[in-house]
């Protein structure tokens, strides 16, 4: 065990230090710590989302400087202990995925075996007599001695052949880090020292880049931040319960599967869900590209031969022209016969305009986000921007709710708690978006802006609580849910995302969560749902019309969400950066 402790690498040392300082005589009460953070946050301009501080810090963010430093540290330490060159050490570490303890164990177990595997020869394999001129093993030209080089094995090749060999390897990718002697019978390693001596400037830089990246990519304890364009890496203490990490760039993701944070759904389900959706979208793209919908029943039809007269399959049996999708009875010699159609051109225009409409919609969705609403509001209401943090936080909460709701869809069932959380969320969203518009469009500062602030901040907080409870309930495997309530996991995993009309929650669900909405019973002992006015029996704790009907009877929830939130989740996250 002692040697184990000695061989902790740079990534481990830090966490040890943390433990040392945090577990001491001064037992830090977590509530106090939270209170401290909250206190600091309210004063400073840092709009760090306070709730996130409640999670244990089980990861560190590294920038390029940190990475280089740690890599250098590990190499130096091992090189000293094993008494080998730094270049040899880096080959060794790379081979064992930068695990200092693995290198240590393997080396002292069987040095010979390790040397053979990694290609660290102690002495040359071939000896050449000291001839003035030597033949290169690749191009078979002869050169004076000093124009050839060899790795530790002694196989000599001319400098230009080495340069070419290295260039090809480097341009093939990070495999160049394990480059070996060109001789197929020889496994001698070719390290960075030889690269720096023989490769071109461009190639040397690329090699160096791969070398640095390898410390993150091949290392089991670290991963790059999943945000596109972000250069930070995350060092994670495996074994902690939650995999959610937040990078300095404000992107939050699941370290385990590198998808965006998906609490409370587990990584396996997330993977399947994404696969299913991407497979579907490929199918959809193919169908759009290679088929047309029947004008009557809309089923996609693929035409693979013959003339333009199409008859849809039973029960539809509609006959139409493939080119213009018009009814076939109007076609004949006048319209161009069986293989052409002069109605086609105008119809094509319509297709074009549909594309344009789609493009316009996209653009419109983007426009909302490009102007900074906060700046505008700050001007209009004569409030400093730092006082408008509550709006940012409201939106952050909305984004978080959106994400949780999105992922609970993967389960495909319905919880009683869900109902109230959702209502809360919609109320929050309503306030944050619609009411905010009023103040944005106002002519001058409004008296009741402070009231608005109180309301929104309050809503944010209440919504946050509801969602925390929801998430916790799901993470605990629904042990909190009444047996008459949700369908349960086994049923839902079969219909992964399939059934949009989810059933459940008819039982005597926890009425405790229905605080805030008092049931006004009418004469017959029924109460009327405030969303859909459905008349429910007294014993029903939630409206029997179900979750989906309440958002908008015509649409599904996701439709609602994607339409109502201007822009996309990513755009909003980017907009309201956590400093």
């Amino acid at each position, binding site marked *: 065990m002692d040697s184990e402790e000695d061989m902790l690498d740079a990534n481990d040392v830090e966490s040890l230090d943390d433990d040392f300082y945090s577990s001491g005589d001064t037992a830090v009460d977590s509530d106090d710590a939270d209170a401290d953070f909250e206190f600091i946050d309210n004063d400073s301009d840092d709009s760090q989302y306070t709730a996130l501080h409640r999670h244990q810090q089980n990861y560190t963010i590294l920038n390029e400087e940190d990475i280089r430093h740690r890599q250098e540290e590990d190499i130096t330490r091992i090189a000293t202990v094993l008494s080998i060159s730094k270049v040899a050490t880096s080959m060794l570490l790379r081979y064992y995925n930068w695990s200092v303890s693995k290198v240590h164990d393997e080396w002292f177990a069987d040095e010979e075996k390790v040397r053979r595997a990694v290609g660290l020869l102690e002495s040359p394999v071939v000896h050449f007599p000291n001839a003035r001129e030597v033949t290169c093993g690749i*191009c078979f030209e002869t050169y004076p001695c000093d124009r050839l080089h060899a790795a530790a094995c002694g196989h000599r090749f001319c400098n230009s052949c080495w340069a070419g060999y290295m260039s090809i390897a480097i341009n093939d990718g990070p495999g160049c880090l394990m480059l070996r002697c060109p*001789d197929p019978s020889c496994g001698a390693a070719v390290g960075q020292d030889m690269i720096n001596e023989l490769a071109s400037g461009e190639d040397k830089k690329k090699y160096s880049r791969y070398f640095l990246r390898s410390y993150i990519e091949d290392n089991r304890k670290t991963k790059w931040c999943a945000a596109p364009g972000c250069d930070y890496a995350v060092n994670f203490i495996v074994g902690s319960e939650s995999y959610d990490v937040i990078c300095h760039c404000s992107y939050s993701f699941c370290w385990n599967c590198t998808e965006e944070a998906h609490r409370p759904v587990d990584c396996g389900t997330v993977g399947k869900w994404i696969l299913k959706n991407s497979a579907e979208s490929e*199918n*959809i793209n193919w169908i759009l590209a290679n088929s047309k919908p029947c004008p009557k029943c809309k*089923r996609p039809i*693929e035409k693979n031969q013959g003339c333009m007269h199409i008859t849809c399959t039973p029960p539809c049996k509609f006959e139409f022209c493939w080119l213009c999708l018009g009814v076939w009875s109007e076609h004949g010699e006048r319209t161009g016969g069986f293989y052409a159609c002069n109605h086609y051109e105008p119809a094509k225009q319509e297709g074009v305009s549909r594309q344009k409409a789609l493009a316009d919609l996209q653009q419109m969705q983007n426009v909302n986000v490009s102007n900074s609403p906060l700046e505008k509001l700050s001007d209009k209401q004569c409030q400093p921007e730092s006082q408008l943090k509550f709006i940012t936080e409201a939106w952050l909460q909305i984004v978080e709710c959106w994400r949780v709701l999105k992922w609970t869809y993967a389960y495909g069932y319905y919880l009683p708690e869900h109902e109230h959380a959702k209502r809360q969320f919609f109320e929050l969203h309503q306030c944050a978006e619609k009411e905010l518009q009023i103040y944005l469009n106002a002519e001058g500062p409004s008296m009741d802006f402070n009231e608005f602030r109180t309301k929104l901040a309050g809503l944010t907080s209440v919504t946050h609580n509801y969602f925390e409870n929801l998430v916790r309930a799901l993470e605990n495997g629904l042990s909190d849910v009444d047996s008459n309530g949700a369908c349960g996991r086994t049923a839902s995993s079969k219909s992964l995302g399939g059934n949009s009309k989810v059933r459940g929650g008819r039982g005597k669900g926890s009425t405790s969560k229905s605080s805030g909405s008092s049931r006004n019973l009418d004469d017959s002992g029924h109460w009327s749902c405030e969303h859909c006015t459905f008349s429910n029996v007294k014993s029903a704790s939630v409206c029997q019309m179900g979750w989906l009907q309440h958002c908008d009877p015509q649409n*599904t929830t996701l*439709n609602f969400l994607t339409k109502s939130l201007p822009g996309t989740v990513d755009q909003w996250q980017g907009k309201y950066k956590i400093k």
Partner: protein
Amino acid sequence: GFAGENKMSTPARKRLMRDFKRLQQDPPAGISGAPQDNNIMLWNAVIFGPDDTPWDGGTFKLTLQFSEDYPNKPPSVRFVSRMFHPNINRCYTSTKSYLLEVQAPPLDAIVNLGIFVVSKYAVASEKVYADGSICLDILQNQWSPIYDVAAILTSIQSLLCDPNPNSPANSEAARMFSENKREYNRRVREIVEQSWTAD
């Protein structure tokens, strides 16, 4: 001489000239090859079936396509003659794609396209493209710049009698080789005879 003499200076071309010279001066038994008239990057070669084997008497034609990365990258080698061997692909192409009807539609399709029937269908697509190419390790991941044309052709020749069961390009041949050697040899003799008459 070859057209475009000024192109002689690339390392790939210089090396190919040297390979050609070596083949002419010191030819290994049972193989032969030469660049095409005006293109040193494309070679024709012949491999003779090893003596005293079912391959005996066969004259199998191949092409070798080199790139400017030679010798750091291997050439693409493919048989022109019809072959029957576990590690040599047949020469044919076929593409097929069709719609299948599946179960429940996913929500995303509904939301994104407003076509709720679309995702009842799934597309299956099958594309098989085989071109007489060879599954030989030195031609893929075990390549070394030390190998030359002679080495390549010699390795392929020894592959004929010594298939590698781990990478079956021709599953029918692979199966027959392990389960029904007599039928396998009969098929080999068939393509040996065909190699005499083919152009």
